[in-house]
């Protein structure tokens, strides 16, 4: 922008950039102008006419009031927002808007926080002059998350613009004309975008409201509490609305560096899981196969005794990557205090061969807010919209700005922007990456040199290399959850590093969960001590813990049959262990089957703590509500346990003290993705001979125990347990669409239906993980056999 200019609003001199709209300047100056259609993150529609103001430029008055949202400022502009002429225009607009708006505020969910209601208080008349019939509009079913009362709609089109501009799908539209205009999808269908819930916040009236929250509370009964989202690695800033010790709904808090003004539907609606029936409310101990409810003292004394008596080398701690920083740190301290280095949070990873070379403080590689400014983004093994809905939005912004978005994935993603995707079976991904590296004229060393040397780049790989080079340093290579679950993740990391280096761009990791980055700082990692210091003698990583059968296991905030890379192996490791203690906010059959002691801990919103997000930003939050029943915040449980184990320094008064202690240890730590050592990688485990490989993507709403328990999200499509194959692959195996098949992963088996899907790579079988039905299976990514049970007719019977 060029030089600043001065304009005058209501007699106040304001600094503005030429071309800015009057309303943006007024908002910055704290001068309120009523509006409905204007939103700072959306394009300008200027269709509600509520922001009419009186203005003059260079001494020449505008002939009529002008919309403040669509009038750019210029030198010598004078604006009056409260002059008689402006107010007359605003009152007139208000009267027209109210003509068709029903007077149903007492039964409207928006009542009390409605922009129309507020503005009507200021500008509306007491009595309507309109005596004709009001318009009635039929509702559409927009799915399980958004409730509609379209008669209340004032046609601001914020929702339509949001869907088109931010979500990138034109699902909503304004059909009809004049009196008959209505907002809807025209042919009723559910709005399925993972950010769609934001239209609830955008709607200035009660036309679009939250379906799960509907009719449960009034805004004036709610207390707001700030929090941080506990699911993806972004750490969206939240406002929890609490009534009588219960989280009633979740709204976003603005933070330009993190979530701008949006949140994903996962962050918005997962709170419902807190109020479910299967919360763990009291400590439980299994004696002779029977569960008994016990007092905390008894449970913790028992756990301390067993942990003390256990062989620390034969003990393992599996920590959920969305546990708070404080919980992870205290757990790491206890484990190491007992002499046990077997602690890990990388629950959905199977290849740990690069542990000695891995960076100590891995992160996104670029700050979140920098993503839209990248010129090239290479996504490796990431179902980005499912994994990181709002980072996907940032990447989309980059793409709209001309960035090349490149993907190497075992399935073709439905991205709402231009992208180039290499569809690659899991067994072929390594060679595709090597080919891109070769096209960049990278050499690599050791096995890498062989891999790169042996590859034959095609035009596709050359194009990728070209795009990455042209980014001029403004690019990033991102590794996602499907890469992390891959049996050759260490090679992925090494090759991604080579590619990034050769192209002169950055390497980044998409964190698997809200605190994956923090877990490295807290030392919940077999090779990393608190403060992101390397451990001298690394302990066992997840894979080794599951394979070894350890005699003592501690599970923190996870369900062994859903949250680990291999449900069957996880369940069997728990079975073989002599003592399993599980701290969980939720009760579940798999925990009952695998654990000996269940300790109820507070879930998200019920504990204070800190998450470290993808950018490496520490974000702390307070508990908003008390945990149910006897459940206690996790850090308190660990504090008592530390004291019972006679470990020193467990006298923390609050999480702030824990955090400060860890922060002091982290004083030197800086996010850095450079490998610590040259990686001694070995060859790929998956090869062309491995045959069909399962791609166990975790659906958006199955990520962790909390989100799996949100009833409304469970009704969203995408989490059905089934197997999806490329039509050519199915034909090769002699299978047809709708066949009932048996899935075989070694000992592990499950039955399901087959669907043909050309978006899945040949050689890959898309079989979701962490969904009901997937418990009986093996590794999220690994060889899978398919056996035909019966044809389509059986499918029909099963519905």
């Amino acid at each position, binding site marked *: 922008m060029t030089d600043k200019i001065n304009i005058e609003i209501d007699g106040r001199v304001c600094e503005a950039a030429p071309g800015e709209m009057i309303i943006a300047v007024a908002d910055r100056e704290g001068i309120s102008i009523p509006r409905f259609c204007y939103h700072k993150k*959306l*394009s*300008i*529609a200027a*269709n509600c006419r509520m922001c009419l103001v009186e203005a003059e430029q260079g001494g020449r008055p505008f002939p009529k009031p002008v919309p403040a949202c669509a009038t750019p400022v210029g030198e010598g502009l004078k604006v009056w927002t409260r002059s008689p002429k402006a107010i007359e225009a605003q009152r007139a607009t208000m009267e027209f808007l109210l003509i068709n708006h029903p007077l149903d505020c007492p039964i409207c969910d928006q009542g009390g926080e409605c922009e129309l209601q507020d503005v009507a208080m200021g500008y509306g008349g007491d009595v309507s002059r309109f005596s004709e019939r009001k318009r009635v509009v039929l509702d559409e079913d927009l799915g399980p998350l958004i409730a509609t009362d379209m008669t209340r709609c004032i046609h601001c*089109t914020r929702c*339509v*613009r949001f869907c*088109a*501009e931010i979500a*990138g*799908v*034109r*699902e*909503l*539209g*304004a*059909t*009809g*004309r004049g009196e*008959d205009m209505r907002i809807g*999808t*025209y*042919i009723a269908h559910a709005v399925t975008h993972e950010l769609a819930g934001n239209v609830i916040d955008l709607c200035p009236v009660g036309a679009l409201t939250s379906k799960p929250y509907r009719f449960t509370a009034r805004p004036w009964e709610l207390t707001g509490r700030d929090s941080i989202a506990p699911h993806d690695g972004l750490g969206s800033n939240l406002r929890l609305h609490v009534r009588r010790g219960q989280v009633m709904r979740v709204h976003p808090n603005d933070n330009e560096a993190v979530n701008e003004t949006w949140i994903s539907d996962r962050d918005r609606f997962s709170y419902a899981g807190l109020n479910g029936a299967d919360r763990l409310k009291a400590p439980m101990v299994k004696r002779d196969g029977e569960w008994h409810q016990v007092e905390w003292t008894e449970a913790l004394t028992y756990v301390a005794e067993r942990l003390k008596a256990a062989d620390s080398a034969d003990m393992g701690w599996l920590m959920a990557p969305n546990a708070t920083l404080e919980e992870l740190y205290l757990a790491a301290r206890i484990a190491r205090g007992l002499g046990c280095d077997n602690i890990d949070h990388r629950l959905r990873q199977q290849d740990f061969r690069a542990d000695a070379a891995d960076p100590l403080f891995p992160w996104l590689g670029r700050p979140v807010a920098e993503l839209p400014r990248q010129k090239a983004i290479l996504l490796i093994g990431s179902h980005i919209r499912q994994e990181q809905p709002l980072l996907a939005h940032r990447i989309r912004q980059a793409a*709209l700005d001309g960035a090349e978005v490149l993907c190497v994935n075992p399935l073709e993603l439905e991205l709402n922007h231009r992208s180039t995707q290499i569809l690659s079976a899991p067994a072929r991904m390594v060679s595709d990456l090597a080919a891109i590296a070769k096209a960049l004229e990278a050499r690599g060393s050791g096995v890498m040199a062989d891999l790169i040397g042996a590859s034959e780049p095609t035009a596709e790989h050359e194009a990728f290399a070209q795009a990455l080079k042209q980014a001029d340093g403004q690019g990033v290579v991102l590794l996602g959850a499907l890469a992390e679950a891959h049996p050759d993740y260490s090679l992925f990391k090494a090759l991604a590093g080579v590619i990034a280096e050769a192209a002169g761009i950055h390497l980044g990791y998409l964190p698997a969960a809200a605190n994956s980055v923090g877990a490295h700082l807290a030392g919940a990692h077999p090779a990393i001590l608190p403060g992101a210091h390397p451990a001298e003698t690394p302990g066992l990583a997840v894979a080794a813990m599951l394979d070894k059968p350890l005699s003592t296991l501690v599970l923190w905030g996870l369900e062994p049959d859903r949250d680990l890379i291999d449900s069957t192996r996880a369940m069997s490791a728990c079975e073989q262990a002599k003592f399993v203690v599980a701290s969980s906010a939720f009760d579940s059959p798999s925990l009952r089957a695998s654990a000996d002691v269940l300790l109820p801990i507070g879930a998200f919103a019920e504990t204070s703590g800190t998450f470290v997000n993808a950018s490496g930003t520490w974000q702390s939050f307070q508990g908003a509500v008390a945990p149910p029943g006897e459940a206690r915040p996790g850090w308190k449980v660990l504090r008592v346990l530390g004291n019972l184990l006679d470990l020193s320094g467990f006298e923390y008064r609050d999480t702030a003290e824990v955090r400060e202690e860890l922060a002091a240890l982290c004083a030197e730590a800086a996010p850095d993705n450079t490998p610590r050592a040259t990686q001694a990688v070995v060859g790929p485990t998956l090869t062309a001979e491995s045959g069909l490989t399962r791609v166990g993507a975790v659906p958006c709403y199955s990520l962790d125990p909390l989100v799996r328990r949100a009833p409304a999200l469970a009704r969203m499509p995408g989490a059905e347990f089934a197997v999806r194959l490329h039509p050519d692959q199915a034909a090769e195996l002699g299978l047809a669409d709708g066949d009932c098949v048996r899935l075989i992963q070694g000992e592990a088996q499950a039955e399901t239906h087959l669907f043909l899907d050309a978006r899945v790579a040949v050689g890959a079988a898309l079989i979701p993980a962490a969904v009901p039905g997937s418990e009986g299976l093996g590794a999220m990514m690994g060889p899978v056999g398919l056996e035909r049970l019966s044809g389509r007719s059986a499918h029909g019977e099963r519905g």
Partner: protein
Amino acid sequence: MSFRNAPLAVEHDVDKSELFKPEIREAIDAHIAKYPPEWKQSAVMPALSIVQDANGGWLTTELMDDVAAYLDMPAVSVYEVATFYGMYDLEPQGRHKVCVCNSISCMLNGSEELIEHVEHKYGVKVGETTADGRFTLKEVECLGACRDAPAVLLDKVYHEKLTPEALDKLIDGLE
């Protein structure tokens, strides 16, 4: 409605050479050629007219979807256009369309009498089709013929300064 990143193009998973008959495609292509390639959505109105004419004067949702696919645009954008303009009909129509302008000039000059006359004489209300399927009576927004109001658009031909008798004659001439 102005979108910041307009026009939003959507690729549909269909084979465009399967959509419509060759001559219809050719006619639409002639309109697409008038605009820059990234603005081919601008041809949506003529495309809808061509498709509607070929379908006996009305549009089905499937046809609108096909137009959306052909022009790489979101289906809902086509619905917005088709529901906004009076010349697109979304229900089966009579063999002819009698479109009486009912905007201000025509109204002052007797368009309401024209409508009443047709309604009584032929037993149809606005928006309805005669029992024999001969014509559909439509009330439309300003035809832009205010100088010679009241005006009626009969299929694609303007007729101006009409009296009920003159309109009768026109209707009698319809098949």
